[in-house]
């Protein structure tokens, strides 16, 4: 078991606290079968992979991937980047990753930055080799919006209403819990490099079989290639269904 990065500095009133979904990502991404996949997909002397996590929150997953790069990707030369809409999550992520990186200097990749942004809107096209997304997946009536004041500045005391909005943003997924996830799925063809792989967390309420089928039928895989979507990690059985699962998405 690779050690889980410390997040004791993270303000959990403002940033999503690592939970079962985060730990499922850690287990799945560091499994022997993931290592085999990564090693053949990103062989040691191929160009340095760029790893992006969307919505890193506390930064626990991105810090894990960065600090243990050599164990997870069989090479320490990876670049990592986190994009979160919540500025407090960005600050937490930057700190969590650099602390974990310092703790594991011989196996660690290079952390580029935490960026405050809306999903992948600020990225140059087709640069991401590994995309990780633990989305706001809980089915809800509405999709929350970031309070206007928190888009620009973080000065001043955060009100109780703003706090609850920030936490709501981290879990509320709108219709089927898929409104935000669907935007990311639709952008995969533009965001991933030719060899790019995405890891997406889904809950049972997201109708994962239908989601995977929709991905396989997307038509922008490129000449002679198809989208693949396979479940590579699960946790928590509930009434015969896996409560959470990780889907690996790539083209071949």
């Amino acid at each position: 078991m690779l050690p889980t990065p410390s997040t004791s500095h993270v303000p959990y009133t403002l940033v999503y606290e690592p939970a079962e979904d985060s730990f499922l990502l850690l287990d799945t991404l560091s499994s022997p079968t993931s290592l085999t996949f990564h090693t053949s997909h990103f062989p040691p002397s191929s160009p340095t992979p760029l790893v992006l996590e969307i919505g890193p929150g506390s930064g626990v997953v991105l810090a894990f991937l960065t600090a243990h790069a050599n164990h997870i990707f069989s090479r320490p030369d990876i670049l990592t980047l986190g994009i979160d809409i919540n500025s407090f999550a960005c600050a937490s992520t930057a700190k969590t990753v650099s602390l974990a990186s310092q703790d594991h200097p011989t196996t660690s990749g290079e952390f580029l930055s935490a960026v405050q942004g809306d999903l992948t809107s600020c990225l140059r096209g087709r640069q991401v080799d590994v995309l990780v997304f633990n989305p706001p997946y809980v089915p809800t009536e509405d999709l929350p919006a970031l309070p206007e004041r928190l888009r620009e500045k973080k000065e001043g005391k955060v009100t109780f209403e703003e706090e609850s909005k920030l936490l709501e943003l981290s879990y509320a997924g709108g219709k089927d819990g898929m409104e935000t996830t669907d935007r990311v799925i639709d952008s995969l063809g533009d965001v991933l490099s030719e060899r790019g792989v995405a890891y997406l967390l889904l809950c049972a309420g997201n109708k994962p079989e239908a989601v995977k089928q929709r991905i396989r039928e997307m038509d922008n895989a490129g000449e002679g290639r198809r989208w693949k979507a396979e479940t590579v990690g699960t946790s928590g059985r509930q009434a015969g269904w896996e409560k959470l699962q990780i889907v690996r998405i790539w083209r071949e």
Partner: protein
Amino acid sequence: MKLLTLNFLTCAVKTCKSSSDSFPLHPKDAELASDDVEVNPELLVNLLPRLDWKALKTTSAEVFLPSCIYPLGFPQLPDSPPTIEQLQSDDKLLKDLHSLLMETNLMEGKLVCGVCGHEYAVREGIPNFLLPSHLV
């Protein structure tokens, strides 16, 4: 944020993306900081093929303008990217690239789009790409 991050970012305004002037973003009033990172030649060699060299040259020229706070010295980049052999045999170039890509951080300032002119703030090393509602 590592200066290298600019090699992967563009303007977040949808209509800017089709224009080549939206990349790279232009640093303004940049405050830099330098990290002490151990040189890793293998990383630089593997990174080389995926860099946009022209954009990197632009970034390094702009961020080190005399008007900016610059405590580090001027790495001079060649016009075209070195080959792996050149990089491996040129110690100075290797060190310059290492210092530029792995050690230089942009802490405060702005990132300006060459198309729409929007200025993205960088505070405490974190750039903010959220757009005001009228641009979304």
